[in-house]
């Protein structure tokens, strides 16, 4: 299902892609400027959310619903990564 141009749905899809791109830019800004390590770690969370959003938008654009599994796997892996980083940070604090 490819939405016809100049409808509400196509406007919404374009708007969502623009917003997600702005989210990526904000994440990049914070990744470069971030004053501390936790700043850069929470950027991982934001980038994962934006990636899930892009995957879901592409599902609506193309109609290939099988890609919902991609969103599921991204959500699982990112949680693991975030918890691992938090454990690592705590361990470095204890060693100091």
């Amino acid at each position, binding site marked *: 299902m490819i939405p016809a141009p100049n409808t509400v749905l196509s406007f919404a899809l374009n708007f969502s892609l623009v917003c997600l791109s702005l989210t990526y830019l*904000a994440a990049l800004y914070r990744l470069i400027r971030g004053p501390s390590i936790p700043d850069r770690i929470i950027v991982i969370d934001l980038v994962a959310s934006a990636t899930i959003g892009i995957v879901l938008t592409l599902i609506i654009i193309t109609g290939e619903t099988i890609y919902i599994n991609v969103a599921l796997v991204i959500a699982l892996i990112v949680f693991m990564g975030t918890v691992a980083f938090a454990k690592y940070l705590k361990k470095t604090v204890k060693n100091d």
Partner: protein
Amino acid sequence: MIILGSLFMLVAALGVIRLQDVYMRMHAITKASSLGIVFYLLAVIISCFSWNTLIASVLVMVFIVATAPVASHMIARAAHMMGIPMSKGYVMDHLRRDLDKNKTEEENAGVSGGLEA
């Protein structure tokens, strides 16, 4: 639904740029982006409905809503233990108080144990 989800994502992005310290940024990212993903999933359920999609979407939704607060809490705790300064204007800091109390209790226990030995 898609527009709502995009707006929440945009709020998360603005929060990341504008807010002042780690804790505020985490607050912005966690809640706004998980709500945005929930709206995106509702849009997918509405636009291409099938049982597979419904089950997978509900699974993603439950997982996001369950794990985003846990992850953000763990990172906030680690950041606090690293001693990253809070910006001005916070009224109270209960975790610092509790950590200090635990430390003094441990020191007292160590001293008394040493005396007994």
